[in-house]
């Protein structure tokens, strides 16, 4: 493991930040304080953090309807995100985007996306920009198992493979697309095999294990950066909550869920490994837990106090006004 203590702590902070952020959102929606369709990332943190920890300013990511984790992992500010989800003028998208469109282009976060699969070609385009403008950057598309059944997945991977673009395609295989088990709609066990249709390199990671994701992503990113072409990385993971806040979860096996949640929690997993290897101390982690809790409480407080957007904003930002 080539991560320094500081890097490990930073990784843990991100894992925890995502978890606490998502838990808080769940509460807020249930309490009727927050609206919209809300899809939580809890349980899948190791994927976003394992990959994004290795990305820099020139690298970009595209995301899904379940996008808060990717934002946080890519470094988007919590306060701006929270204000966005409260629909306030101080939101990172001025309250116009909301959960499914949260984005921060300056941080290379090209947006959550309400259209399943739509982020995949966008990342392909970002990779094309990197290639043509020789930025040295890599574009990463995060998307679910369900999204691999979209035509956009197929077309994009084929194009990226043909052009050997620096693109990393990350499948977050959490076993479900909404309420439908993946095995009902994907007739192969490992979705990673779909890379073979494009003679593309593929890898599989344990998406509940930060270190495994990190290692596989490292290999994949090195491959992309070397100009050898795109990589498909499948991370096997699980979402701890429902598809969206409000999902009654009647369709899923309770024992199976309990097993994932109790025995394979990525935060617990991380902690066990770093403590066993004596890389960091438990107190350092607890301190981060507290700091994150405070950070999120502060974000909620400031968001709730923030102004609503002016109604005139309904009609602005449709076009770049001067045309160019």
């Amino acid at each position, binding site marked *: 493991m080539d991560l320094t203590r500081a890097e490990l702590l930073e990784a843990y902070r991100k894992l925890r930040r995502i978890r606490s952020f998502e838990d808080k959102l769940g509460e807020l929606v249930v309490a009727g304080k927050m609206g919209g369709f809300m899809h939580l990332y809890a349980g899948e943190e190791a994927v976003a953090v394992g990959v994004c920890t290795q990305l820099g300013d020139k690298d970009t990511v595209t995301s899904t309807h379940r996008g808060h984790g990717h934002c946080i992992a890519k470094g988007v500010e919590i306060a701006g995100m929270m204000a966005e989800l409260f629909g306030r003028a101080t939101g990172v998208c001025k309250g*116009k985007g909301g959960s499914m469109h949260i984005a921060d282009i300056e941080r290379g976060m090209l947006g959550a996306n309400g*259209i399943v699969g739509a982020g995949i070609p966008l990342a392909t385009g970002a990779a094309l920009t990197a290639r043509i403008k020789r930025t040295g950057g890599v574009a990463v598309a995060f998307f679910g198992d369900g999204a691999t059944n979209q035509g956009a997945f197929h077309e994009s991977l084929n194009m990226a493979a043909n052009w050997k673009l620096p693109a990393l395609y990350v499948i977050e295989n959490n076993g479900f697309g909404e309420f439908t088990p993946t095995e009902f709609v994907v007739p192969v066990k490992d979705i990673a095999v779909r890379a073979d249709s494009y003679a593309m390199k593929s890898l599989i990671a344990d998406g509940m294990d930060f270190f495994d994701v990190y290692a596989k992503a490292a290999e994949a990113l090195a491959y992309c950066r070397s100009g050898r072409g795109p990589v498909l990385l499948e991370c096997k993971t699980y979402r701890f909550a429902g598809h969206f806040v409000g999902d009654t979860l*009647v369709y899923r096996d309770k024992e199976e869920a309990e097993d994932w949640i109790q025995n394979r929690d990525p935060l617990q997993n991380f902690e066990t490994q770093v403590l066993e290897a004596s890389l960091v101390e438990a107190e350092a982690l607890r301190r981060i837990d507290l700091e994150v809790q405070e950070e999120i409480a502060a974000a909620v407080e400031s968001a709730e106090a923030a102004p609503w957007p002016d109604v005139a*904003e309904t009609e602005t930002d449709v076009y770049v006004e001067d045309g160019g």
Partner: protein
Amino acid sequence: MSRKLSLGMAVNEALRIAMETDPDVILMGEDVAGGGDRKGDDVDEMGGVLGTTRGLVKAFPDRVLDTPISEMGILGTAVGAAATGLRPVVELMFIDFLGTCLDPLLNQAAKLRYMFGGNARVPLTVRTVTGAGMQAAAQHSQSLYWITAGIPGLKTVIPSNPADAKGLLLSAIRDDNPVVFCEAKLVLGVSGEVPEGDYEVPIGKAKLVRGGNDVSLIGFGGTLPICLQAAEQLASDGIEADVLDLRSLQPLDEDAILATLTRTGRVVIVDESTPRSSVASDVAALCVDRGFDSLDAPVKRVMAPHSPVPFSRVLEQAFLPSAARVVEAVRSQV
């Protein structure tokens, strides 16, 4: 006999009747069963994200098909199935997803019959949720019925209440043409009296839901309650409004539109969609063409602005047409 049902449950009832009365009717879509088709176990099904199809997979296990998230494949498959003897009802979860599956509607379902010189029938129904009102933001809140209404070969209907929803859906399913059936979020949860049993509401017939001789308020789907609210407000000022519920966007009931125009001389169209290439524009264009001689005032369109749908509650409310804006439009005419 009738009882109160939400629009969603009226749709559920229509689907059940359609499947009971015709073995060729099948349901397809993402989670229309919702995990419930796991044979041999007792897992409960969700029946779609909004629960509209709940219970149907248990009743018709071989004819309710959960699909992959593959709208192009789903719609295209449904067109092929419709052209060869089935009568598929597809759920396109939100009409915004039309972007992923327009071709099977635009170039296949709508055109096969014509291209084949009349030798094809495509009895396909696409159920889809339209419009804003749930803070679902730009990609889950559009009122894109103007696209399907604009495509020759398709029909498009949009009920404003549960009773019409049931009857229109039964007509749509039994129609030998492809029909897009819109469920507007603004009225999807609203309850109303729904007759029991099997009945049809004809496609292409508007309904005058309120009589008045001073102005015509024309709405449909989610804007109908807004029209009625505005009519109440206007009435308290002594202005009596006709309120016409279009119900069908294609075919348009041109006669009913011209009849109300003739009665009142003043028309306000209330349409949740953005203004360009809209149903509202078509109605206005009809008025200024065939209805020209009856027009006493500018035809007003109360619509969303030319923008995507915003997320923030305050912006979304500003985005949607409102009774206040309708009243203001009427005032500008007199």
